[in-house]
């Protein structure tokens, strides 16, 4: 195949084969997960640690970052677990309901379908040409921005280039206050509680209860339970809130402190004791 179709290299086939193997392996025993977590630490947390002081001066709420929360599973890859988040509703109790004069949602969705169809069916622009043009303009804009930054002036992205490709967002309007992810306000996440089921203990208790003469259902009802694994404000790295700035600080701390990292890993693997 490689010799007949020269556009594919052996490396491509090898990469595809490895990817396919990884996909199949998802249902199997966990492997190399510490390695993955160490990569997260190196690629994300350490990078933040290197520039946190500089960033905190220019961007005190760390608005350049968004947080992706990846959850542990119920399937016992490690121990089963889930999380309860607590969020700020203080102002919700006192605020009057805002009166909106918005169009009905069904009308919005009808218009949305039409608008997206129009973009996708726009035959005036060749697809490849359209892609390259928008990306070219994006590059052009960024180069200009970088050039300005190098001169010590605050760069501003071009206001027009994104109009050619609606899959690029418009630049956030100036003057918008930080959202709930960045500054404590209505709907800000405040804290979380991580629950887990200690399967080894549950199964041990279950078998013992059976031995003691309980029925299967009685034994299961007594033995099966979730318990708090940890909370976001628990030692050894209690978080004040769980805003982006709290996570950025945590990321920095985790990259610098091996003892904290050990605890973080234990929690990442849902207190199962997993090692590579």
């Amino acid at each position, binding site marked *: 195949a490689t010799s007949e179709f020269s556009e594919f290299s052996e490396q491509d086939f090898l990469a595809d084969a490895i990817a396919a193997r990884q996909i199949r392996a998802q*249902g199997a*025993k966990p492997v190399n997960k510490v390695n993955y*977590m160490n990569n*997260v630490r190196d690629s994300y947390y350490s990078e*933040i640690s290197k520039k946190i002081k500089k960033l905190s001066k220019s961007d005190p709420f760390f608005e*350049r*970052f*968004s*947080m*992706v*929360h*990846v*959850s542990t*599973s*119920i*399937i016992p*890859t490690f*121990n*089963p*677990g*889930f*999380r*309860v*988040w*607590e*969020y700020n*509703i203080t102002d*919700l109790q006192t605020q009057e*309901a805002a009166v909106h004069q918005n169009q*009905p*949602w069904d009308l919005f*969705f009808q218009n*949305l*379908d039409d608008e*997206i169809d129009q973009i996708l069916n726009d035959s005036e622009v060749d697809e490849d040409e359209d892609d390259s043009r928008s*990306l070219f303009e*994006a590059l052009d804009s*960024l*180069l200009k921005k970088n050039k300005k930054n190098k001169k010590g002036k605050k760069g501003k*992205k071009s206001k027009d280039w994104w109009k050619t490709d609606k899959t*690029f*967002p418009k630049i*956030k309007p100036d003057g918008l206050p930080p*959202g709930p*992810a*960045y500054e404590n306000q209505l*709907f*800000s*996440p405040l804290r979380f509680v*991580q629950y887990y*089921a200690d*399967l080894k203990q549950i*199964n041990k208790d279950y078998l013992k209860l059976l031995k003691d003469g309980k029925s299967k259902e009685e034994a*299961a009802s007594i033995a099966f*339970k979730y318990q708090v694994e940890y909370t976001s404000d628990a030692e050894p790295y209690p978080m004040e809130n769980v805003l982006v700035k709290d*996570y950025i600080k945590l*990321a920095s701390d985790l990259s610098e402190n091996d003892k904290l990292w050990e605890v*973080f890993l234990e929690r*990442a693997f849902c207190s*199962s004791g997993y090692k590579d």
Partner: protein
Amino acid sequence: DLRGNSHRGSIKGRFLQITDLHPDLYYKEGSSIETACHRGEPNDKGDRAARFGNAMMGCDGPPDLMYYTLDWIQENLANEIDFIIWTGDNVRHDNDRKIPRTEQQIFDMNRHVSDLFVKTFKDHDSEDPRQFKVKVIPSLGNNDVFPHNMFSPGPTLQTRELYNIWNQFIPPEQQNTFDRYTSFFVEVIPGKLAIISFNTLYMFKGNPLVDNCTNKKQPGYKMLLWIGYTLQELRNRGIKVWLSGHVPPIPKNFDSSCSDKLALWLHEYSDIIIGGFYGHMNLDHFVPIDGEQAWEDVANAI
């Protein structure tokens, strides 16, 4: 229309995320772990499939683990939470050559798990079939589709069947858009707070039908249009939003043109987006996405 004040006293200020249940109806307590916990005598004590599963041994979830988990949540947490973000993978893995998965089995299990969530969290006193005591927002996992990982833009048999399965969770006015993108959002606090469930398979490297998010024919490109219009409308209405989906939108999982473009949206709508919840990787951790870096990556990608 629940825009009045009547719902406010009942807001608890808590919600739950749950993911990757993977119940396996072929799971057999007491069988050998080495045969996917499906059959055979255990080689030794450590090879015995336990009733609620064995951590780190590679089998899927026993159905009892799912039933008892939802019962435990119902008994201990349901009265304390406002909504549940449920990020997919409700079907066993394709890990036993003697029992390959079929499309019908996958539909059936998705329906079974969905019915279980409805039964557990619905408001059974209400005549409205969409009235829940605890609202549930599902999203699609890579194991919830057939063939494994492969999912094309709708309308298709699969998107229509998924709507049928999840119809009590999806606002009816979003049926058509759901058919196309398998994505939707729910106003968990009407006019104030929404949860977007988006189909991450349209950006997932493991989906053979996905190459990038730069070509109009690509499903990820189409879904980014949907995400963009939806975010702008939510901003116009003053609604804050959490994102949710199955596969975390990080470069390891997404084509870079998809993860970068999504990062741009997260960045430019950070006034309303609070964050995102995902599953798939079975590991409890967080990944900070740098929007400014994403702008640079777009330039470098060229």
